[in-house]
């Protein structure tokens, strides 16, 4: 998929979930053995048009995620190209052991997508939020974990995942519209972080919807004379270790930003790479603290946890000044 300004704008407007469904619709003619599986969530995944146009490539198994994951693996075992999706908590946690056994242990290849992950559905309460999926999926061997920065990257990630050698968990965050990070084409490669800005004071590593405010935060910091490198770490596993090691030598402080619990996600993955290094700068982690307490409007939750451009810049500045 080639990204241009018009495409980026269009995808941004519809949000990452619809971008996922639209991408599968566009790719369907190229994949004879594609089968899209849903658990009564076709509309939620932007798959209505797909369902009507390609009924032979579509399978709804009802509200039964454990069964859905097993069926997806069974289809994959027959060599079919399988894309499964439902809301993130149900996609990762309700069927967690099916993921372990069918995809991790046996290695059947499925693209499984967690819709509306993070806290975008905060008004519905935390049953429908997912702040744990990166940590849980990261712990299962043989699963690649991708968290796209925007809707254009979602489209690129879907295509890359269908051609990847192992199962991919695709974590979709953000609402609609979802601000674009990219407005022109770029190389998306699973496992390869993307540098969006260069600076030698602070290295900001962000993922998912946090990439956009991280870039804005870098602009704010620059006004205060603090120059930041900003990296889009779209692949959480396998993480781009070299990119992290390079930042450890080129900057004085690292900051990780994620719409996810601070336990086990991006920040932890970065720390795991940093820990054995003899000389590494300090790291601050920004994300959601170990709590289900703050529900409600998406922007209010993000603001509460300091996951805005101003919040990110402020925290980095305070830490940087203490170096």
């Amino acid at each position, binding site marked *: 998929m080639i990204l241009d300004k018009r495409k980026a704008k269009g995808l941004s407007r519809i949000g990452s979930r619809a971008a996922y469904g639209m991408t599968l619709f566009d790719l369907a003619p190229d994949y004879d053995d594609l*089968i899209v599986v849903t658990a009564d969530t076709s509309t939620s995944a932007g798959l209505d048009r797909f369902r009507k146009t390609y009924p*032979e490539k579509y*399978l709804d*198994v*009802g509200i*039964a995620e*454990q*069964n*859905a*994951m*097993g*069926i*997806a*693996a*069974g*289809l*994959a*075992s*027959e*060599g*079919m190209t399988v894309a499964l999706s439902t809301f993130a908590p149900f996609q990762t946690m309700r069927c967690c*052991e*099916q993921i372990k*056994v*069918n995809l991790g*242990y*046996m*290695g059947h290849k499925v693209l499984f997508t967690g819709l509306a992950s993070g806290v975008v559905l905060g008004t519905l309460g935390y049953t429908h939020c997912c702040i744990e999926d990166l940590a849980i999926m990261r712990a299962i061997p043989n699963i690649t974990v991708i968290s796209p920065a925007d809707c254009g990257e979602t489209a690129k990630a879907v295509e890359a995942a269908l051609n990847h050698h192992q199962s991919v968990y695709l974590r979709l965050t953000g609402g609609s519209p979802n601000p674009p990070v990219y407005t022109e084409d770029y190389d998306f490669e699973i496992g390869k972080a993307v540098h969006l800005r260069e600076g030698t004071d602070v290295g900001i590593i962000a993922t998912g919807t946090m990439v956009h405010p991280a870039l804005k935060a870098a602009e704010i910091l620059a006004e205060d004379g603090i120059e930041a490198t900003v990296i889009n770490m779209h692949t959480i596993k396998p993480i781009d270790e070299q990119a992290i090691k390079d930042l450890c030598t080129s900057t004085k402080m690292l900051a990780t930003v994620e719409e996810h619990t601070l336990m086990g996600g991006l920040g932890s993955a970065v720390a795991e790479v940093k820990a054995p290094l003899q000389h590494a700068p300090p790291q601050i982690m920004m994300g959601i603290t170990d709590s289900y307490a703050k529900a409600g409007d998406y922007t209010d939750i993000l603001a509460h946890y300091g996951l805005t451009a101003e919040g990110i810049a402020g925290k980095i500045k305070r830490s940087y000044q203490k170096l």
Partner: protein
Amino acid sequence: MKNRAQDINNIEQMTARMRRHILDMALEAGAHSSHFGGGLSVVDITATLFGSVMNIRSNEPEWADRDRFILSKGHGCLGYYTALHEAGFITRDELMTFEKTDSFLYGHPVMNRDKGIEFSSGSLGMGLSLGIGVAVAAKRRAKDHRCFVIMGDGESNEGSNWEAMMAAPHHKLDNLVLILDRNRHQQTGTNTEIMDVGDAPAKLRAFGWHVEDIDGHDVGALYDVLSARRSDGVPLAVVANTVKGKGFSFSEDDNSWHHKVLTKKQYEAAIEELSGELLPSSGSAA
């Protein structure tokens, strides 16, 4: 053209040899122990499938048109590995590596297509869903092969099975066969004591399956219901009423044999019981 009488005779001979192999494997496993009871309850079923009903080729394990098999109750693997041996997928020497370090024959099956093991299992309640995926793929590709899934009645406690039981008739998977090993026991007691499965045939019928309620040790009955192909959009469920530990007087219907060490003394007594059923040349197939 199949010769029913000859096939059934061959299958019955095969079950005797499989029980002999199981004794040898259980003894060889020693202190590691084995799921003896639940393996023996499925022997007549797996012998019927691998000995005659299923279209499989041991010299071409991934033959595209082969029938698929899933042992959802993975702990019943003694009844699976020995059937694979009889069908030519696994050698006798390989059988004897059961549960040893670096063997490919652990206490629960690990996917190994070259050896005929289609899927890993052991965590209960996952096999029927996989079978649905396999059956849907066959339907979408207009393929004729079938998929057979053995589920334990204790295993049916897992709710995921009922998700799958609802889905198979909905998707009209008449190429899918569920065999419920109704041995009426589970790990720590009878079904009635732990979780009553109740009227399994009625429940499956209510979910939309065509149900055959048979003696799971009657090879003739197994042969007939498993050989019959369906084309009416209704999946087949065979409720196979079995005896846990079937084949040896000390283990039949005794749930202490769910997972237990077989002693040399018990082994010798079992060999003695089996001797009348085995043909002279059996028990040492290469």
